[in-house]
């Protein structure tokens, strides 16, 4: 019987993994002994880092979209459907339209994050974000015509996608208004839920003085519990009320509902062994990227590196060999510090990040990587 490998989700993790598996298991796939299937609930692959630039009018969401089929190895089957049920006891899957494989021998969940704006009353009506295509476009509409007032960047949910992006947005907004001669008319506040400006203490230590230098007001231990869109006030669990003219929020995130329903983890994040990425509550199930509850950032680089580990482990299982590949927590990230400067961090489970001094060359490296990302999705770099 054909070995069924089913990858749920065709984002960075799913695409890199499927292409890696096609490469490793090419002869078996060609012989019909193994089938690699990606199930995605739409036709496109979306590169989300483009969204950071959309509010500033620098990019459009379409720059981050390409047909998934074009990025996948020809040996990978692509099914456009949505997995609606996972039975980990019987190794069976259910689908919205019934198009995908019914059973699996190896299942990889790469279902990513979704925004749960409704968790904060008033946020849908009163807040903007750049963590979705529609959100980034709506924010672009507001930001391009925003010339004075109080802009708040509020990190409401954590964990969230791309932990650097809130800092990047604030640094970019500061520089953008400054260069346009509007900074004196725009007050910028950055809020963060814990006692420092970033979850990672090393990045927080680096970013705090930079925010102060840029005259960004900092509110820590700030957990919004409601937004009053009529009064334009952010109300926090700590009892403060912060008036705003433009609220840019990082909404609470959740993983996939189907993950939660399958008992694989809370809020749709799969509980996994941090090194093997195997689900702790089921056999022959892996999770990667945002979906895996590892404690490392929900970032594309993480999904990329994790995909290589999961591909090796599944290929080992198919070949009847012990799986030895493990994930070391490796994360890399470029961090924009303005409109034409960026920093860079690299860290893992053992080694904390040391942000590089901001430079133009790192900014251009970030933009260059964004362009070459499509080669990563194809499994080439």
């Amino acid at each position, binding site marked *: 019987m054909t070995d069924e490998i089913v990858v749920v989700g065709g984002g960075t993790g799913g695409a890199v993994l499927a292409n890696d598996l096609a490469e490793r298991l090419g002869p078996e796939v060609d012989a019909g002994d193994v089938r690699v299937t990606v199930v995605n609930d739409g036709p496109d692959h979306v590169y989300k880092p483009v969204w950071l630039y959309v509010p500033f009018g620098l990019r459009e969401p379409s720059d981050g979209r390409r047909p998934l089929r074009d990025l996948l190895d020809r040996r990978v089957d692509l099914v456009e459907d949505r997995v609606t049920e996972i039975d980990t006891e019987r190794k069976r899957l259910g689908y919205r339209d019934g198009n995908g494989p019914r059973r699996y021998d190896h299942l990889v969940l790469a279902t990513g994050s979704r925004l749960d704006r409704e968790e904060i009353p008033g946020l849908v009506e009163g807040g903007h974000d750049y963590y979705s295509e529609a959100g980034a476009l709506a924010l672009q509409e507001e930001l391009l015509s925003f010339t004075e007032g109080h802009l708040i960047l509020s990190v409401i949910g*954590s964990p969230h996608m791309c932990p650097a992006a809130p800092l990047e947005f604030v640094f970019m907004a500061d520089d953008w208004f400054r260069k346009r001669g509007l900074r004196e008319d725009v007050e910028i506040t950055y809020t963060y839920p814990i*006692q420092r400006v970033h979850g990672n203490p090393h990045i927080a230590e680096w970013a705090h003085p930079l925010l102060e230098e840029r005259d960004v007001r900092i509110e820590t*231990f700030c*957990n919004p519990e409601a937004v009053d869109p009529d009064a334009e006030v952010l109300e926090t*669990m700590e*009892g403060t009320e912060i008036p705003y003219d433009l609220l840019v929020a990082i909404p*609470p995130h959740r993983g996939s509902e189907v993950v939660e329903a399958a008992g694989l983890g809370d809020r749709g994040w799969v509980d996994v062994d941090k090194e093997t990425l195997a689900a702790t509550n089921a056999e022959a199930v892996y999770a990667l990227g945002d979906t895996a509850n590892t*404690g490392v950032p929900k970032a594309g680089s993480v999904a990329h590196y994790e995909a290589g580990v999961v591909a090796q482990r599944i290929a080992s299982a198919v070949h009847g060999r012990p799986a030895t590949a493990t994930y070391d927590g490796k994360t890399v990230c470029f961090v924009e510090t303005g409109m034409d400067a960026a920093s860079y961090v690299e860290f893992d489970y053992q080694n904390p990040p040391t942000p590089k001094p901001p430079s133009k060359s790192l900014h251009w490296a970030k933009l260059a990587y964004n362009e070459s990302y499509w080669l990563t999705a194809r499994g080439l770099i």
Partner: protein
Amino acid sequence: MSTTAADTTVDARGATCPGPLMELVGAFRGAEPGTVVALLTDEEQSLTDVPEWAAESGNEVVATEDEGTHYRILVRKS
């Protein structure tokens, strides 16, 4: 042994900072005043993060229990 009763328990064992505090904050969202939430955490930093946040937000740390492999921190919503 657990000695203090809680209305709800948040198991954040295995999560690193700021995960446990964020899970506690999540449990407090929408909770009724008076609700006692027990946070299970093996992150040492929770021992300072949680009381600091409780003080900042006007909530009360009712007890901190060392369960051997983890801590059980009970916080009452004001």
